[in-house]
């Protein structure tokens, strides 16, 4: 694929090496393996707001929550729980 986000290879003594380009979902951060020649729908989806590829489950959600925002929310939740625990 054009501008892949990564590369994966599986090597085995009994079979030819299997190589795949990968990309990171722009929403959840999942790593998606792209089979050469597969249809765009099988590879996942596309976030028009960010202009980046997303995984199938995030494409099905239909909403845009960027990875940076999701990470920020995880950090905020953890900080809030820590503050609650300290206050108790």
């Amino acid at each position, binding site marked *: 694929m054009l501008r*892949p*986000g*990564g*590369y*994966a*290879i*599986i*090597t*085995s*003594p*009994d*079979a030819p090496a299997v190589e795949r380009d*990968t*990309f*990171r979902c722009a929403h*959840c*951060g*999942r*790593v998606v393996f792209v089979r050469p020649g597969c249809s765009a729908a099988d590879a996942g989806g596309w976030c028009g707001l960010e202009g980046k590829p997303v995984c199938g489950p995030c494409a099905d959600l239909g909403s845009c929550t960027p*990875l940076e925002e999701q*990470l*920020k929310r*995880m*950090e905020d*939740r*953890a*900080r809030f729980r*820590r503050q609650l625990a300290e206050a108790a």
Partner: protein
Amino acid sequence: MGNYAADFQRTNDTTKTTGTISAPGSSPRRLSIYEIIIGSEGAVADNPFLWTIQRTTAAGTSTAVTPQALDPADAACVAVGGENHTVEPTYTASAILMNIALNQRATFRFCAAPGGEIVTPASNNAGVGFKAGVGGAVLVTVQTHFQE
């Protein structure tokens, strides 16, 4: 921002995690995992494995693994590694970042391009866990390189 390496080994147990890499309990930092290598050094066999890399919010109980700096000039890693878990980490439901179906005889390697890394939040004890929910009871190894 330094690059670090950590490896995790255990006799595989489909109910137990092979390894975790997590932010520390205080002053956490985000981790960017850019390389993962998975294989088995056990006696050759045709066991199928299903490896899962999933977000964690607590590291569980395990044997400590100290990540090593790839550049000796870098500071010591603050992230905490663990292998051979006896108490499972707390996994975030549905937060699976990678699934790999792999034969025991095969080796898997993933290299991320800049911008394609697996990133964990800067939350206390948050990280990722590596586990094989399907697989034989053989020695397995997970090698990971990350930035923090």
